[in-house]
């Protein structure tokens, strides 16, 4: 019984991590490098968008991603009753 719920907990964790890492990949490798040329045609303020993702945006999103993950995991821990005292 315990094992069943642990398996489910792990499955949900891996799913969350995969989702976060897809975003991680898209903003840095995707927007910052692979798609930088088409995105550079768009301007936000004095920044070309692709350049902005590579030198600013990706880093802000990295920070947000870690806190999002940390927060979601905290809830998941509670849901499955595996959080620490």
């Amino acid at each position: 019984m315990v094992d069943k719920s642990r398996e489910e907990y792990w499955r949900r964790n891996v799913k969350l991590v995969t989702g976060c890492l897809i975003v991680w990949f898209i903003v840095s490798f995707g927007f910052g490098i692979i798609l930088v040329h088409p995105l550079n045609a768009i301007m936000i303020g004095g920044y070309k968008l692709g350049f902005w993702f590579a030198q600013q945006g990706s880093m802000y999103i990295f920070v947000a991603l870690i806190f999002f993950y940390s927060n979601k995991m905290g809830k998941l821990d509670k849901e499955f009753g595996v959080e620490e005292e």
Partner: protein
Amino acid sequence: MSLKVMTYLVVGATFALYIYIAIRSKAKDTNDFYVASKGVHPVLNGMATGADWMSAASFISMAGLIAFLGYDASVYLMGWTGGYCLLAMLLAPYLRKFGKFTVSEFIGERYYSNAARMVAVLCLVTASVTYVIGQMKGIGVVFSRSLGVSFEVGIVIGMIIVFIYAVFGGMKGVTNTQIAQYCVLIFAYTVPAVFISLTLTGMPIPQLGLGSTMADGSGLALLEKLDGTLVELGFAEYTAQKLSTTNMLFLTMSLMIGTAGLPHVIMRFFTVPKVADARSSAGWALVFIALLYTTAPAVGAMARMNLMDTIQTGAVGSADGNIEYAKVPQWFKSWEATGLLKFEDKNGDGRIQYYDEKGLKNAESFGWKGNEMIKVDRDIMVLANPEIAGLPNWVIALVTAGGIAAALSTAAGLLLAIATAVSHDVLKGWLMPNISDQQELKYSRIAIGGAILVAGYLGLNPPGFAAQVVALAFGLAASSIFPAIMMGIFSKRANDKGAICGMLAGLGTTLVYIFIYKGWFFFKSTAMLPDNVDNWLFGINPQAFGFVGACINFAVSYMVSNMTEEPPERIQQLVEDIRVPIGSGEAQDH
């Protein structure tokens, strides 16, 4: 007050602070020494991790690299921050739950093999020592320039200071000191950036200033103007991509994986009270790192702009468009004296021409006979920046103190990782299992002393070491440590043989690939192929090979594990156990 007196005062004051903190928080037992009693608050731990992580390379070199590479330098920005996502989601919480002191201890126990543990120690020590050499060199350069002593004396002073607080403080002392160092270095980095951004664009926040309109009435955005200025002088556009896309991708990936595999960074996450804190602590660390890393692109671009504007004062090609050498500002002369900035009046007109000879075809029609700024060292940009912008002396002194803080904090963290690997893993874990806590502490202090001597010696006599060695440290960590830890957590099937073969294959291929182009053990004369894109395998830069090494490690580890027997039941149980936070408690005592 003269700049020199001011520098003595500011650097002296920050030093007194670090040493005071280190002595106040003297470690009492091994637990204290290694992991600060697991009592460090996640926000403070994040701050200390930030100081630990941001070395002389981040503080002094990176903005200079950005200034001259433009968009291509994004690989360093994304690579050195994106690794924290991997760390937070794939490693940190599980290693904290495992609850031991060192990375190699985890590998030894997860793969139920002392051989695996020793292979891990080998990887960790190699990566850390190479990294410390770079730091010692950085400390020597900053000290010698700011205190007016020779490079050798500068390194020796640095060695003594690092020794004092790493040896007597241990992790607790280092953690507290690093919090103070973070404050010094971030203040020293942002103050000049704010002033310069304000002057150029009227916007005090550098991150926004970089995307703002110039305050000179031209109506152009800063980056637009910089692109234009550079193109006019034959340079490549600042915001354009020069490196191949493959190398951009691979280099970024290598730096990210390497970040998540460096022992002194991973060790940080053993020091938080709970598993949940390990997750958020990585986030806080990245907040504090990103403060500097998002400022750096502004510092780089604005420094380049100021440099170009200082030299090219009028229209390109006009008779009085270039500054007269007799009228250059004081910073130009003082950097010339260090030999890091060199000017040669090739056409004898008494004015300075700074342009790209390959890009500017019609230079001769202006009477220009070649680029006259024959040397502009990238590493001087951050230190020279406040002077170029005409900021007061105390700001310049502060930047020096910040550079020293960055170099010292990273060196101390790395030395601690080395000491721990030697005394805890090799001596207590293998050669002398019966030594007491007191003896273990003694040996780790001896190991720190030894590592400082080795690093100091190599820093004094660098055998052709340079930035590529820092990349090697990352490549090593990426190709050996990260895959072994990740497989250990995410695959129950990974066994001892798989891990050992994987680590050796990843490490071996990466080392060989680098040595072929850089020379065996970095002796340039032994290089087997010229180090350029025509000779690289599939055009992959040796600095970017760590990612390939990591892939090889994963593949070998997976195949060998599946071809050999399953890990024992108790190991599979252990993996089950580290995957959930419950029951982490305090670290197991030894």
